[in-house]
């Protein structure tokens, strides 16, 4: 796609990355993450694996500034400029070019599909290109075009998930964070959604961090992966194959106790 | 100067809420009386102190206020706040303590109680309902040719309801056919449709009974819709007496026949009233209180004049003696000569009916001069002639 070609180019030259060092975080007395080191390098798709309640979402919330670390640092480099995310508000982080497809979708149920998408272009950098972005989203998700005037809240779970991804793309992000995109999707759509993420990544030159339960699907598109167990990084794998081969993954996912 | 404790006069009075405009005006007049009297050495050689609490225009706090005044503050005398609700709410407490009760503008408030120590300052006379609109209907009948039809309209509240009931009786007695008889609710903003409905019944006379915001709304709607065939328009329109509405409506008032309690006409120059009004206006304007002081102030002052005279003459604060004295005396006050009759009402009713004439522009000062509010009724105070029909008089 035309609009993205230059982005890819810039991305490659200037680099968009996330670096997390020694991160501790939690909710009040509940400590969820301890001593996380994690890196997402420019142009990569990194999968964040781990069963429920192990802190994947919390980690993503730390990147998005929704949860403040008690210790450690979260930095992002956007087009070569480094930012300390732990000091920024969520909206400012989005403003930098980091977008989130949140857990539970978090759409605006009483706005129409199109209004939801347009709101995605709120940040200054995205506003001018909103028409192109919208056309792009409709091309990627024809279902959304069909339902453009339906209220988001009355769409089915899967339709909503598409809309959530579409809305995130409307912010013209450099880095995309996705929290469990396949939850509640039909098998046919799980694969399609994961493919869409991979495709978007390609077309828009994104850097992606994806938390996902569905190990086989996640692994299909991941360049690297981390496995989170009880708030620690249990495994950091530099290629998909070593993830597949790891005992931990087998134990966690294939129920092989 | 005197070592004796002051004489304390207690009341609850509206200083906030819907009745506050009247309450504050009345209170100022009373304070002026207290100043005057204290300057003259007080009563029985004792200074006078007014003890008052804000009743918030809410009658449900009134019983408590009077119980406190009488039992706890141990005031020597009690008087009422403004208007019927507050008076009646205080009555059981006051009656139980057998206090003399001078009251300010209660409509037939004593009819049910028949309390013999009750004295009421609004000059309605013993039959308020019938008396109120008598002057208006007489003015209507004085026209030539005699009017045949009348429209009655008023607000959904106590005063308008009584005024309308009286007007209905009087109109029937006078042989006027009632062609419109409706009420409107308190929050009405838009009166044009009311006026148009009235107009469509083609009455000769229109009688309105209203509270302040409606009075203004009514007059303006009449101007906009136009009542071409009507001979006489007016009624018991509370609020037209106040400076605020007078100056706002200005020339729109011309021709309107309205009830009033005082007007600066030559026929009403009671001794002391002009000096009082001068002093009242000095203080009212800076306090945001009605700067003309025609409606309630002179009679509020007079109320305390009466009470003061009773105390001085009987040389006592004994309620029985005071009541006896007030019942049997004719008082000369700045509000005129007053004597009380049945149920503590004025023995001789004195509802004034005035017609606004020659008003131009919006200055308040013009209303302080004679000739703007020409008194048509009662004859004793009559100061000019009725202009009609209404469209003529409006010019």
């Amino acid at each position, binding site marked *: 796609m035309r609009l993205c070609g230059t982005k890819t180019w810039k991305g490659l030259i200037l680099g968009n990355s996330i670096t997390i060092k020694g991160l501790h975080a939690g909710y009040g007395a509940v400590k969820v993450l301890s001593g996380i080191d994690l890196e997402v390098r420019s142009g990569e798709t990194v999968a964040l694996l781990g069963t429920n309640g192990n802190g994947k979402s919390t980690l993503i919330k730390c990147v998005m500034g929704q949860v403040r670390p008690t210790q450690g640092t979260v930095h992002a480099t956007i087009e070569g400029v480094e930012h300390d995310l732990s000091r920024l508000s969520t909206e400012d982080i989005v403003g930098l070019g980091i977008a989130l497809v949140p857990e539970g979708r978090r759409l605006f149920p009483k706005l129409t599909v199109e209004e939801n998408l347009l709101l995605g272009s709120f940040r200054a950098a995205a506003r001018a290109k909103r028409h192109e972005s919208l056309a792009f989203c409709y091309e990627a998700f024809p279902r959304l075009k069909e339902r453009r005037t339906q209220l988001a809240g009355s769409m089915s779970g899967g339709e909503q998930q598409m809309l959530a991804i579409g809305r995130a793309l409307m912010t013209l992000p450099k880095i995309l964070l996705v929290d469990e995109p396949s939850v509640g999707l039909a098998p046919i759509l799980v694969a399609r959604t994961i493919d869409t993420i991979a495709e978007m990544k390609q077309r828009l030159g994104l850097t992606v961090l994806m938390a996902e339960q569905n190990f086989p699907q996640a692994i299909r598109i991941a360049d690297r992966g981390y496995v989170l167990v009880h708030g620690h990084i249990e495994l950091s794998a530099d290629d998909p194959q070593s993830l597949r081969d790891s005992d931990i993954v087998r134990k966690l996912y294939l129920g092989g106790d | 100067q005197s070592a004796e404790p002051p004489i304390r006069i207690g009341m609850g009075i509206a200083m906030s809420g819907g009745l506050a405009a009247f309450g504050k005006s009345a209170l100022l007049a009373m304070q002026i009386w207290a100043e005057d009297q204290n300057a003259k050495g007080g009563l029985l050689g004792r200074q006078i102190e007014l003890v*008052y609490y804000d009743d918030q225009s809410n009658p449900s706090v009134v*019983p408590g206020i009077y119980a406190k005044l009488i039992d706890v503050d141990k005031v020597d005398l009690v008087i009422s706040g403004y208007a019927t609700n507050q008076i009646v709410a205080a009555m059981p407490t006051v009656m139980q303590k057998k206090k003399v009760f001078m009251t300010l503008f209660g409509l037939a408030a004593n009819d049910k109680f028949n309390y013999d120590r009750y004295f009421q300052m609004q000059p309605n006379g013993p039959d308020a309902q019938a008396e109120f609109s008598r002057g208006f209907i007489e003015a209507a009948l004085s026209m030539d040719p005699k009017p045949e039809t009348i429209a009655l309209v008023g607000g959904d509240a106590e005063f308008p309801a009584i005024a309308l009931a009286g007007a209905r009786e009087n109109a029937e007695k006078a042989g006027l056919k009632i062609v419109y008889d409706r*009420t409107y609710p308190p929050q009405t903003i838009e009166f044009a449709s009311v006026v148009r409905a009235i107009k469509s019944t083609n009455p000769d006379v229109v009688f309105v009974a209203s509270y302040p915001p409606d009075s203004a709304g009514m007059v303006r709607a009449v101007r906009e819709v136009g009542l071409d065939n009507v001979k006489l328009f007016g009624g018991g329109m509370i609020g037209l007496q106040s400076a605020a509405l007078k100056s706002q409506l200005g020339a729109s008032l011309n021709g309107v026949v309205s009830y009033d309690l005082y007007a600066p006409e030559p026929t009403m120059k009671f001794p002391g009233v002009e000096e009082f009004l001068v002093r009242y206006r000095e203080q009212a304007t800076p306090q945001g209180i009605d700067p003309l002081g025609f409606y309630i102030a002179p009679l509020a002052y007079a109320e305390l004049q009466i009470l003061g005279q009773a105390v001085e003459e009987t040389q006592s604060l004994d309620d029985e003696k005071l009541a006896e004295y007030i019942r049997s005396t004719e008082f000369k006050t700045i509000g005129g000569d007053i004597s009380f009759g049945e149920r503590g009402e004025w023995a001789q009713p004195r509802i004034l009916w005035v017609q606004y004439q020659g008003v131009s522009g919006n200055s308040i000062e013009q209303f302080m001069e004679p000739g703007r509010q020409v008194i048509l009724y009662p004859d004793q105070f009559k100061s000019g002639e009725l202009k009609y029909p209404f469209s003529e008089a409006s010019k």
Partner: protein
Amino acid sequence: MSSTYTSHPAAKRVLPKAFSLPILLFGVALVAVELLIGTQVSEYYFLAAYVILQYVVLSTGWNILGGYAGYVNFGTAGFFALGCYTTIALNNILPMPLPLSILAAGVVTGLLGLGTGYLTLRLRGVFFSIATLALAVVLQTLIVNWSFVGGARGAYVLRPDAMWPFASYVHYLLVLMTILAVAAVLVAVAIERSWIGMGLAAIRDDEVAAEASGVPSLRLKLTATTISGAILGMAGAPFPYLITYVDPPSAFSLALAVNAIAMPLIGGTAVWWGPVIGAILLGTTQQVLTVTISSAANLLIVGVVLVVFVTVAPTGIVGMVRRFRKGRS
């Protein structure tokens, strides 16, 4: 399997008995004290106490629907006024002792509550609140146009003489209102501690989920609107005897609606003593201010108290006490 959990602390929290003897005994004692001091105390204090207790009844009644079930009633004044006008109407038809009027008012306004419940059964949240507001306006219009109870002109209800053992009619009114307040609180406690309270709490949190759990939400809501309506109306029934002359603006006063909401909020809506404390506190403040600061400023102070209170203690006094206890333990 069940025996495993009998020792768990949460398992021990079996619902307490719905009837509260201590409150009843306190009420009896209160009435006894009132009867004893009848002649020694100035009527002023009786009147002040009456008004405060009237607010206790109002805020307790409001809280049954507003606090327990989460249905915020803006139309308190409508129920209160209907209670007043029941007394007036009965007085016109066939004068009867006040306690009977109070019961009759409870029946009439309970029916109104039931009707409100039916009419608004599909309404949730603010829609319900606005509907109750509208209901009060419609009711006021009806009363204004109903001349049998005085209409716009208002109606007089003269106090009869007080009978033994009461020192005065005001004293009698106070004792009646005390009984009413204790009864209202007992009803609130019973609801709170019984299965009705639990069902209402479930409805408050999520009505659809409650239905799916077998909670007959309509029936419970109707129970709550009826009981709440009856209590609000009974609070209004003696009012004509307090102020002797009632016209629609004084019966449908905004101050009532405001207080009935503000008091439970200041006290706390989750438990029965929240509204009671709130009513006593705010009611007393208003009474004291009326007779101390004799100017328009007293309403100003009520406003400031309200603002300061809800900003400083957002969960009401109940919440404050709970936090204090938590902090201590």
